[in-house]
């Protein structure tokens, strides 16, 4: 019998980025890079494990906005176009490095990787990689869960129960529409939890969620299993706390596995290294240098003199690191079994994009992990829902306000760079509630306008916008998106007030921000008593 459980949880999310009004759009690369470097490689890992009869269990959260983009035909075609560009660049790189044995093998690796991505994307999945996730869910290898509809950081919408409900309910509906089964679990964006949120999750039929380590440790009653067993909220919903030891081993680029000198360096990319006349056709508009994904150097160390990347050496490292990860979990089990009356569960939540996009070898590490686990009797992979079935009696306690952001609370999403947004996004919620009260039963054009208004309100709430403002990556884009959604909402609000909704403009907007096709604006219906029905 296992002495411990490993609950690997991956959260795949990107904000809704779709710009049909432009032939090409820079920020759509977020999606293309994630598909190429994370989602397709992960699916191949799952496939190899399945073919070899290696048992594995991964809880996978796929955000509704990401699902919408993966299912969108325009973005599928654009990804294909992007892939063809990468394959062309791969061929060029193979020719360019043919006489340089330091790089030629790596160039062929990238060319083959993009070609394989194309085959999988088109032939295997018919451009719908969601089918891959669904396939492994049906096989019982992954448990698909959801997150808030547009990935709103929920603690900062706590004064507005209507929008909390809308974010949760719409996410569950969206998940059911795509995957055909309701989700059992919920990924709180940024693991952002504030007491009371569990009521909305329960109302939506969910059974468990995840919190930061101190969300459990600072609970209203000392957790007798620490983070190694869930707490059950008074309303029956289970909260699994993040295991810190396993988190640091994987997250940290300084001390963790991704920082190993043998792994591929993220920053040394030919998009910045090679002359413009060569790389121009493969970067943005010929002159804005961007990451291409073709990187030839290993991390090497704290030096600018990077050594050439050796894929085989890096692969060997992933096995070593997978063994190390399991070894440390076994050490933890040995120490914990003295004090616990049940096997500990190590809840290991990560952003999916860490594996492959940031840590190139990450998917290989996951594969090595499960292969190694197969031969390790003392620990087995588990879904949170299975844990709850095996261990239905858990300590009842209320988790604490927490997140996994800087210093454990809300400061990433609420500081001098982004606090200004809430005046406006909250006002939009207030007006949306007012619209529902004014138009409780609309059909036809008015209903379309109201549904689109609801979409725009929700899109303005994406946690990505304040996050980007805080970290300073593409601030102009984030700011512009926020203003655009609020502007769209306000235009609809004013149009409804004046009784004249422009059909052409509305149709264009519906076609552009086309997620949540089953939207019913009454999801913002006011209820005085919060989540209680």
């Amino acid at each position, binding site marked *: 019998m296992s002495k411990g459980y490993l609950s690997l949880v991956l959260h795949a999310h990107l904000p809704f980025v779709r710009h049909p009004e432009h032939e090409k759009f820079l920020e759509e690369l977020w999606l293309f890079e994630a598909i190429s470097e994370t989602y397709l490689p992960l699916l191949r890992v799952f496939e190899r494990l399945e073919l070899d009869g290696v048992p594995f269990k991964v809880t996978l959260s796929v955000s509704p906005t990401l699902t919408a983009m993966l299912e969108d035909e325009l973005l599928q075609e654009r990804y294909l176009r992007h892939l063809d560009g990468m394959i062309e660049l791969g061929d060029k790189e193979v020719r360019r490095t043919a006489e340089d044995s330091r790089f030629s093998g790596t160039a062929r690796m990238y060319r083959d990787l993009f070609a394989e991505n194309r085959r999988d994307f088109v032939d295997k999945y018919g451009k719908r990689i969601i089918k891959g996730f669904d396939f492994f869910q049906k096989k019982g290898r992954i448990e698909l869960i959801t997150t808030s509809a547009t990935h709103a950081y929920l603690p900062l919408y706590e004064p507005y129960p209507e929008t909390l409900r809308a974010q949760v309910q719409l996410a569950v509906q969206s998940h059911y529409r795509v995957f055909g089964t309701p989700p059992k679990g919920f990924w709180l964006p940024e693991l952002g939890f504030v007491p009371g949120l569990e009521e909305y999750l329960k109302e939506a039929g969910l059974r468990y969620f995840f919190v930061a380590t101190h969300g459990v440790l600072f609970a209203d009653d000392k957790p007798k299993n620490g983070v190694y067993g869930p707490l059950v909220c008074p309303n029956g919903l289970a909260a699994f706390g993040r295991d810190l030891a396993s988190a640091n081993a994987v997250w940290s680029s300084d001390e963790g596995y991704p920082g190993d000198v043998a792994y591929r360096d993220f920053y040394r990319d030919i998009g910045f290294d090679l002359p413009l006349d060569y790389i121009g056709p493969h970067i943005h508009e010929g002159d804005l240098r961007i990451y291409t994904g073709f990187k030839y150097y290993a991390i090497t160390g704290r030096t600018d003199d990077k050594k050439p990347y050796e894929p085989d050496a890096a692969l060997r490292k992933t096995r070593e690191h997978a063994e190390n990860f399991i070894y440390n979990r076994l050490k933890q089990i040995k120490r914990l079994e003295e004090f616990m009356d049940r096997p500990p569960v190590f809840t290991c939540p990560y952003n999916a*994009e860490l594996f492959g996009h940031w840590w190139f070898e990450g998917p290989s590490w996951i594969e090595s992990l499960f292969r190694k686990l197969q031969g390790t009797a003392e620990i087995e992979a588990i879904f949170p829902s299975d844990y709850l079935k095996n261990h239905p009696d858990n300590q009842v306690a209320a988790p604490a306000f927490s997140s996994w952001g800087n210093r454990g*609370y809300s400061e990433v999403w609420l500081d001098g760079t982004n606090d200004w947004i809430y005046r406006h996004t909250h006002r939009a919620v207030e007006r949306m509630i007012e619209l529902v009260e004014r138009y409780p039963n609309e059909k036809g054009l008015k209903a379309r306008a109201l549904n689109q208004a609801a979409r725009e309100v929700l899109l303005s709430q994406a946690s990505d916008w304040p996050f*980007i403002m805080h970290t300073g990556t593409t601030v102009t884009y984030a700011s512009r998106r926020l203003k655009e959604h609020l502007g769209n909402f306000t235009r609809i609000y004013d149009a409804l007030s004046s009784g004249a909704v422009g059909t052409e403009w509305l149709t264009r907007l519906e076609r552009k921000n086309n997620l949540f096709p089953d939207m019913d604006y009454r999801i913002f219906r006011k209820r005085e008593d919060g989540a209680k029905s």
Partner: protein
Amino acid sequence: MTRKRLEALSFDSLKAVAAREGIDVPDGVEKILLIDLLLEIAEDRKEEQESRNNNPVRVQQKKYDVSLSRDYDLLPNPDDGILPEGYNTNRIVMLLRDPSWAYVYWDVKGGTLQAAAEEIGAQGALLRVLRFANEGGDVAPGKPVDSYDIPLGPEDTGWYVNIPDQDSFYRVELALQGENSEKILVRSNLVRVPRAVTKEDLSFRDGTPLNMILTLSGVENLDVFTPKRSIPQRINSLHEDSFL
């Protein structure tokens, strides 16, 4: 921010960028030196910000990175939507940032506090921070158990408010003050502030199984904000700070 983008701007535009960022531009400075200054400050700020980011934030940031060139909101783009300065209604919202700080923003009819005050002949405005006791997880009925006031400037629309006592409920009131009277314009939502839990509360002291498990759970390695006992923002007299 890239050198290329800055070089494409006029000297006046560069000065406008500097002003927006709160950077003092020395008299007589040449364009090229101004560009150097802006780039240096941007780099310092970026490093400072990145040093404060923890692992999940650092990794997540990479999702949105498509270029080494930092995108920078140099000047407003005419295509960007314009949001109103405020909304012509009385409302105030309190958002808990961490157990010791909340962000409060408000709108008032008439647009500014000054306009609202003038309408009723008031002389100043203040934010009153009210604490209510926690009774078994619910707010205790009755009056607040403590409060303090923050005088406001005529154009203020938001404030970061210190929370002196955890394990309580808080709300704020926006009030206009006359010579001998006060009018509460609007009250905020109620916010529940969690109890102050420090690592010392949970750390291994006596070797009991519970404390051993908590230690093994990493309680000593939590990188979380810890409330400190500090003097709250208590201001007793307002009249010398009134703005009319």
